[in-house]
């Protein structure tokens, strides 16, 4: 497991916190808590999380 990273929004200079983000793909919609800037809403998704998203994408493609 990778060390916890300090993630700071470059624009607002504040630490990112967990907040809901709305995702959509092939007429499927869902919300998931990911790291976001509490000020401007900038999102961060790690490569590990994106790898998991790809599994969800495949499920939607097969549905």
């Amino acid at each position, binding site marked *: 497991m990778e*060390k916890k*990273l*300090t*993630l*700071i*929004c*470059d*624009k607002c200079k504040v630490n*990112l916190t967990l907040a809901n*983000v*709305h*995702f*959509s*793909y*092939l*007429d499927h*919609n869902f919300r998931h808590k990911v790291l976001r*800037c*509490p*000020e*401007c*809403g*900038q*999102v*961060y*998704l790690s*490569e590990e999380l*994106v790898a998991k*998203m*790809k599994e*969800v*994408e495949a499920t*939607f*493609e*097969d*549905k």
Partner: protein
Amino acid sequence: MERFYKQFKNCIQKEVPFCQASCPFHLEVVDFIEKAGRGAFSAAYKTYRNAVTFPAIVAALCPEPCKTHCIRAEEAYGGNAIELRGLERAIIEQAKNKDPIYYNVPRKNRKIAIIGAGISGLGCAFRLASKKYDVEVFEASGRMGGHLWEIADRSPAVGGLTPEIFLEEFELQLKQEQIPIHFHTKISSLEELAERGYEAIYVATGAGGNDFGLLDSDAPYFIKDNVAYFAGGSLTGKDTIEALADGINIAAAIEIYLKTGNLSAPDDRRTTNVQVDPCKLEYRTGLPLDEAGKVKPENIAEEANRCLRCQCDSCKIYCDLVAYTQKWPLRIKDEVQATMHEGKVELKPQPAKRLINICTHCGLCKEVCPAQIDLDSMFLQARKELHKLNRMPWAFHDFWLRDMDFADGEAALVKTPPGVKKSKFAFFPGCQLGASEPRYVADTYSWLLSKEPTMGLFLKCCGTPVKWAGDEEKHAEAISKFHTDWEELGKPKLVVACPSCMDNISEFLPDIEIISLYEFMEKNGIVPAMKGDRETWSIFDPCASAGKDDLRKSIRNLAESANFQLEPLPVQENHSACCSYGGHVSVANPKYADFIIDRRITESENPYITYCINCRDAFLGAGKKTIHILDVIFGDGCVDGHASLPTVTERRENRIALKEQLLKNIWGEEMAKREPQIKIDLKIDPELKAKLNREWILEEEVADVIEFCERTGRKVILEERGTFSGYRQVGRMTYWVEYRKNGESFELVNAYSHRMKIELEAVWDGKKVDTDM
């Protein structure tokens, strides 16, 4: 789609092997043989017992009708039939667990009477009792077995059958069920039994026994006053084995009668329409049995594996999709039908969406199928309908459609040679040849011009990618533009390098005359520059070369004239399959693409010469020594394989560089100044470039995201790593970058992408947010 579904009516996949059709018990031979072959003796025994009920008796007495129908009996394939009975005897000896299965199902409370405790009556009784019907057996004598006693009394005993063996067998097989057998009970009239509440009566009184008048009627079974009557077994003149099979079949008929009230003749078809693929028919002879007629324990696997498993499996042998998914065509059809069925997608499963998008469209299916079932066209039609219904996952084809736009846009070049208004001929290399090896296109065009001064250049895509994506509208548009370009060139005869382009042009632009580049080269007496060494090579014919005999011949002539020793590939020579590029399957299922490549490159140890650039790239990328026929012709290829293939980014750059080079060298024109695709100073190390290539990410897309992050400030600082991270949606894909900034230049640390869209809110935390990503 209906016309595609209809063709499956002719599928003979369910036709049984010849031996199984001739077997009175219809033993599932393929299943039995497979289990025996892998040493699963108890499982093989169960399969055998499920068919014959009394294995020890049948294995002793079976007259082996299977042997007269076995293909291995033919001299050409071994000269001796598979020793199925010998295997059955061996399995009985080897199986550790022979206990019958007890089915814990509720009793049915339906009464059945069986008259005669011979092998037929007991077989019928056992079958019904195991399904929890109330079966009672009435036997005039004081013992079970009927005429088996006479057989056992003969000297020597047939098949070594002794009373001990059959009595022990009855005890073993019947021990789980409670079957009352009333000995010394002579039934004088069937009406008497009917009055006692029996709903079905089987008369199995043996040869010369009382038939109660049943044999006087047209068929030995009928319904009278709500009771079904059956006569069978030796009473009807059958031998021991047929008598037992009769009892088992009558049990099935009784069950149907009790469930439905209908009487049907027991299904006992002894014919089959099975066809065996010729590639399975090699010569293989058998090993001798032991004195007891058993296959020796050490020979079980070999004898089982000698069996040809006669079933129609040509699709499984040749079609990559069927082989990979292990789904028989009838199942594929069901899944496609369920997927294409109209109705709300939320309410029904669409199991074949990915399956539909992994057909390579090589067309081999209909060629090898005895019923000519065309899976290829069914899948293509399904893609069209999925697209129309807006159910096609866009990501499956997105990369290739963007690639096609690039080939038809910036990279396109359609021109007559300088000073020529109308071309009689034009060179059409296809969109991937110049992307992968620009020198092939440049060298070829120069040579073609030297032979035919009006030779125009037609550097575009033929439209196949939109066809594979199922987008009929865009395909029609591409075809129409193609036609206009061709007219502007002066309606030339096209000299085409790519066999797939040839197919597309022939099918959709029938007024355009075409010739393959390699036939043109051969006819015009080209002398290959490269000289083959003594090594033996094989020609790998691309899937689209099927039916193009002149093209295939030209390739062989060209290679042979360059002193290459050629050896035909065992399968590909006559059944040309795809290299994995066809149908753009690698995005929908990358593992499947690897599976196909592996199948193709392991067909022979020989290095390959091919004439499709996609085949060359697929095989070379997997480490197979492969050259293109244009390497043979121009001699500037590296025989030992290229160190690296161009990345997806370099493939675009190659096309632009080729266009620039051709414009300059042939027409003396400078290409219009091109807006730089990468506007920032960006460094990407080779390992990361390889990763981008694997994940279909273009370097210009990565640069675009960095430039966006810098311009808008929409980025996150990863403090410990000293990097920035940000993303942007480009087209429909979302790309993520992690990078370092060194003064005015940038170093890419990582990049990845996803298909899901991040939906940003217009107002976040009470503030207006710029959602234009």
